[in-house]
């Protein structure tokens, strides 16, 4: 039983982290068509924000809940800065955004290396995440349940925001037809900035979750960026539900492969699966009906 249930639970948590990392991308890449390679570094900014919050609020029971909104705002502001200074001149030129944001990512990495101890900083797990939950004989770490809950809350908040608020409606209108949205009186500039702020902010939240799983250092973003893009592509660009299913599927596949084979082989096998899937279905799980996306 253990051998069946453990990878399922661990994989779901792994998928939840992947989803958190991909959620912001599904906004900036999926909705806006910007290939932001610095997204991983926004994740890193979120993790360092969590560390800085812990320097002020030393009780880790309290500091992580506080760090989540702080990381969202800090990473979001970095995203806004990037949008205002660089990205806004590059809409409809995805290849250029790719090149520029790779550069921005490298600058942010090196800046973190200069500012913080080069080996990285510790982010303490809150005491209420110590311990395990016994599920059918498997001692499931509570921290993993936390990652899943956090991802669920973010997904729910994001989809409600997109669906029920007027900002959300304007974002969807802009995505579906930018020119028509503009002629209807929507300020697409404001919408772009807000979308980029939110997408980057979500990377910051993912960073807090990542800081509880791995190291918090200048290089941490690099390991999430490619899987996150793959998940967004496999889910169908611009499709939230596709991203969710793809992230979960990749996480669970990774975990089962890791359990049956080795950690290295699991990475290869899981991504072969994604690539084969994209060969068979290049548009991803779900497609968005729009004329504005290339």
């Amino acid at each position: 039983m253990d051998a069946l249930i453990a990878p399922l639970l661990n994989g779901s948590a792994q998928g939840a982290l992947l989803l958190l990392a991909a959620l912001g991308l599904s906004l900036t890449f999926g909705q806006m068509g910007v290939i932001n390679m610095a997204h991983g570094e926004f994740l890193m900014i979120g993790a360092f924000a969590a560390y800085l919050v812990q320097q002020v609020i030393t009780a880790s029971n309290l500091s992580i809940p506080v760090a989540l909104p702080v990381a969202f705002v800090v990473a979001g502001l970095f995203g806004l800065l990037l949008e205002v200074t660089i990205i806004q001149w590059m809409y409809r030129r995805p290849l250029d955004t790719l090149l520029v944001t790779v550069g921005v990512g490298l600058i942010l990495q090196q800046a973190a290396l200069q500012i913080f101890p080069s080996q990285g900083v510790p982010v303490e797990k809150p005491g209420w995440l110590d311990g395990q939950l016994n599920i059918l004989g498997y001692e499931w770490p509570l921290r993993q349940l936390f990652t899943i809950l956090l991802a669920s809350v973010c997904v729910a908040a994001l989809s409600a925001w997109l669906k029920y608020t007027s900002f959300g409606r304007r974002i969807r209108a802009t995505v579906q037809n930018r020119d028509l949205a503009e002629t209807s009186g929507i300020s697409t500039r404001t919408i772009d900035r807000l979308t980029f702020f939110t997408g980057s902010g979500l990377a910051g939240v993912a960073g807090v979750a990542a800081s509880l799983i791995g190291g918090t250092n200048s290089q941490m973003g690099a390991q999430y960026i490619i899987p996150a893009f793959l998940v967004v592509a496999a889910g169908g660009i611009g499709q939230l539900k596709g991203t969710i299913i793809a992230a979960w599927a990749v996480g669970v596949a990774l975990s089962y492969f890791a359990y049956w084979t080795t950690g290295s082989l699991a990475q290869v096998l899981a991504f072969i699966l994604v690539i084969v899937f994209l060969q068979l279905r290049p548009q991803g799980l779900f497609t968005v009906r729009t004329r504005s996306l290339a």
Partner: protein
Amino acid sequence: MSTISKRLRSLTAMGAIGTTVALVLAGCGARAGDEAAAGGTSAAPSCVDTSGSAVKLGFLNSLTGGMAISEKTVSNVLHMAADEINAGGGILGKKIEYVQEDGATDWPTFAEKTEKLLTQDCVAAIFGGWTSSSRKAVKPVVEKHNGLFFYPVQYEGLESSPNIYYTGATTNQQIIPAMDFLKAQGVKRLFLAGSDYVFPRTANAIIKLYAAKLGIEIVGEEYVPLDKDDWTSQVAKIVAAKPDFIFNTINGSSNVGFVKAYYDAGLKAETTPIISVSIAEEEAPAMGHEVTGQYASWNYFQSLKTPTNPKFIESWKAYPNSSGVTSDPMEAAYISLYLYKALVEAAGSFDVDAVNAAAKKNAITFDAPEGKVTLDGENHHISKPGHIGKINSSNQFDIVWASDKFIEPDPYLEGYDWFPADIRKQLVDAAG
């Protein structure tokens, strides 16, 4: 859509031009090489000029990219050693003038920069590197130009070169002492966890052979790619295997993920401790309190009580951009520059062949912070004391075990009867 495809086309065109240029350049390079070979000289005569009041040395570490996390400190401590030596009058009365190069966590770059340091900057010796991949990139270049390279990090052994000096531990100075310690602890069931590259794979091959001899059962072996932090799935396997000790050959930030996943799964230092070979004073603070009580095998610890250690620690703490703690790899880098000084002074010359001849006398020593180390002139490694430290609550190490004497370097493990010749050959071939 049309903009994209236009851009793609122009990118392809640029790529084609780039390839053509590269091919032409490669062609030129090949011709130049042929002429040199036809001239009958295997290595160009050294362009090192030590007639002035200074000697040029090359420092080569990754200051950018993923490995900068670790290598920055090694680079800084080399600067500190150079400053100290200069303050003391230099080497053979000549001040060290260093040329700093960035390997940028890219192995071909290490090879290119080595070539540049040797042929354009004309340095007398090069210091630095961290990963085995960087050393293996530098090796053919220093051998071709008959240069010198000083490598400061513990590694998987099974290598020696007339052009490289190794001041970190080889396996019989770090892995084997760790196994002896485990045996003394009465360990019966051992789990091996490592990053997926040459050092952990080779180390674990050696560990398995020695464990069989010691009567320790290996209950599992897991690897995760070096750039992945998430160890959750593998730790679930460790929990299921119920080992009484874990031998950790993970490197870099992945260690933090491993320790977190270990802690999350409810494993504890009291019942299932970890012994590591890449967590030192620099790395431990990034893991916070979760790493307290775990063990590490090194030759040098900041907590060592030797005559020269207090001064080393004090100088480092006062040095600009210092990390504030001393660790084994940086101590080995510090040794490397002093060892070079001792070699040159014994040879009375900066000439590579003269330096190697001086080494052959097996009389080069240095009062290092880890103790008095002696250079082995044959395999170019140094003798070292084996130590096991236990991490305390301030992320420093309490020494709990020490080898009874300095361990002579044996990179090919020729003095160990449990290490068969065919496996040695296999591992040497596999390591390239």
